């Protein structure tokens, strides 16, 4: 009986690792084929490259304008994430600590608006901002991310701030701190774990987003990494080696980011889902 159980558990482990291998195999195929020429790929996509040449990577890196796309993605993601976190935490703080009718209405509107999918907004959004000639700017995109991201962020912070005891703030207020000082010196540091959760969820969303930036960023110089990779794919449809190198270059930074922060990321996703 014990032996049977042991065999069962070994079998289970083997199955799990086999499934994991299947799960990760697409990335392995991209990585290996990125080193090969088109002819090599067509004759056998499984084989290892005859020579491990970096030329596909170098060509892809230059032709897709990797640096500019990466910097665009970085600027947009970093600024959006910071702006969403700071302003939403402030808003949630105000909403929790005051009971003005208008705040209640706004909070309700924000929570309800979380049900509106992006597709229901995109057409008028493009019409309005296009009509005002405000499209094609990275900063407008950051502003839009604030609009799209703030509801969830306020909701997330709101739940946590409610549990912070008032006494801490009272003391500071009596010592003559202004409301703003109280917030930044006392409340915001207490929100650290919520802020980390929120930042992780938002980085994953904004870094990978496609539809919104594809509508807002028109000129190629402003394009983010997903946009650039997609258009690059459209230009070199059948040059497989080059395409695989481009995909590998796009995927690599995310994997590195994940390798360093995987504990936080998994925890962030768990907490985001529980609170939501």
């Amino acid at each position, binding site marked *: 009986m014990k032996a049977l159980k042991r065999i069962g*558990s070994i079998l*289970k*482990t083997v199955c*799990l*690792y086999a499934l*994991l291998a299947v*799960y*990760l195999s*697409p990335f392995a*195929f991209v990585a290996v084929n990125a080193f090969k020429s088109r002819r090599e790929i*067509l004759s056998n*996509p*499984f084989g290892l490259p005859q020579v491990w040449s970096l030329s596909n990577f170098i060509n892809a890196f230059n032709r897709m304008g990797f640096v500019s796309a990466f910097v665009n993605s970085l600027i947009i993601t970093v600024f959006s994430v910071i*702006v969403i976190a700071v302003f939403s935490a*402030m*808003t949630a*703080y*105000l909403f929790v*600590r*005051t009971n003005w009718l*208008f705040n209640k209405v*706004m909070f309700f*509107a924000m929570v309800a*608006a979380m*049900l509106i*999918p*992006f*597709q*229901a*907004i*995109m*057409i*008028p959004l493009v*019409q*309005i901002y296009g009509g005002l000639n405000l499209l094609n700017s990275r900063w407008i995109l950051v*502003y839009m991310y*604030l*609009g799209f991201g703030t*509801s969830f962020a306020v909701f997330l912070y709101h739940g946590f701030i409610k549990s912070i005891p008032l006494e801490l703030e009272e003391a500071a*207020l*009596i010592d003559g701190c202004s409301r*703003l000082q109280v917030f930044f010196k006392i409340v915001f540091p207490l929100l650290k774990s919520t802020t980390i959760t929120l930042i992780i969820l938002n980085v*994953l969303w904004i*870094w*990978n987003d*496609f*539809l919104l930036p594809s509508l807002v960023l028109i000129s190629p110089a402003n394009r983010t990494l*997903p946009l650039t*990779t*997609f258009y690059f794919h459209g230009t070199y449809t059948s040059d497989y080696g080059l*395409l695989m190198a481009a*995909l590998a270059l796009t995927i690599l930074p995310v*994997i590195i*980011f*994940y390798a360093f922060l995987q504990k936080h990321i*998994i925890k962030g*996703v*768990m*907490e985001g*889902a529980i609170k939501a």
Partner: protein
Amino acid sequence: MFPAFFVCTKSEVQRVLALEKRFIDKLKTYLIFAGPTTLAFLTVIILPFLFGIYLTFTNWDGIAKAYDFVGFSNYVTVFRDDAFWRSFLLTVKYVAYTVVIVNTLGFILAYILTGDQVPGQNLLRTGFFVPNLIGGIILGLVWRFIFSNILVFIGRQLNISFLSYSWLTNPDKVLWTLVIVSVWQYSGYMMIIFIAGLVNIPKDLIEAARIDGANGFQRLRMLILPLMVPSFIVTVFLTIQRGFMVYDVNLALTQGGPFKTSELISMHVYEKAFLAQQYGVGQSQAFFLFLLVAAISVTQVYFSKKLEVEA
């Protein structure tokens, strides 16, 4: 303002916190704390949402200065549009398959990975999650290569007939490529949510069931699954929402082809508005979609709440 001997009672503090008495002070505080978010929220979500509803009653092409009110005729057009309904039914089918498979697989993985110690548990959890880190566009492009090169190569080498031609060009199979990629993409994510739920089930409860003679399957069916309803509410909600809204993977993997047999609803709306320049009709479709998804989500959460039990 506050003399040194100021004795602080609870109500006084409330008063301090609500320092702002006059409207102008309240307004100032509001603008400092909630001004940026309110402005962005109103101009990016609410204004376009309302303008969008207005658009559905016009025949604007997006360019002309003048346009007419057309009443409900856009909605009538939508309801009579075969292409819209075809795309809609396709999406429903896609969502149904994805929701069932993603949640089943995600739960099984989570259940195994929280049970008896498996070597390298963390590595497995981390690994299954990887596809979620990467955007739908990139995933779609990766799988385009897998479907059109790798699988076809396997099929031809091993003489497996159903693999020897790319599924991406086969109208009967192309929907399954989208389902496969979505399952691959989301099951790891749902697994994480299920793990969070499973580790919160009190151990002594399961132990008690074991002592009472419930076998593994009975414990799962009678105890664990009912206690996991809150997690399922979240995961089903997320899979439905994402399923109806999927666009990136659709665009990168199949581009709606062949012959629009894989054009899901988001892509259909996009094409109607931005390529066919029928903004009114496109927005009516989008708005219809919003109402439907909101209704489904609310109903789903409402009915599954009824299944919830207290631990």
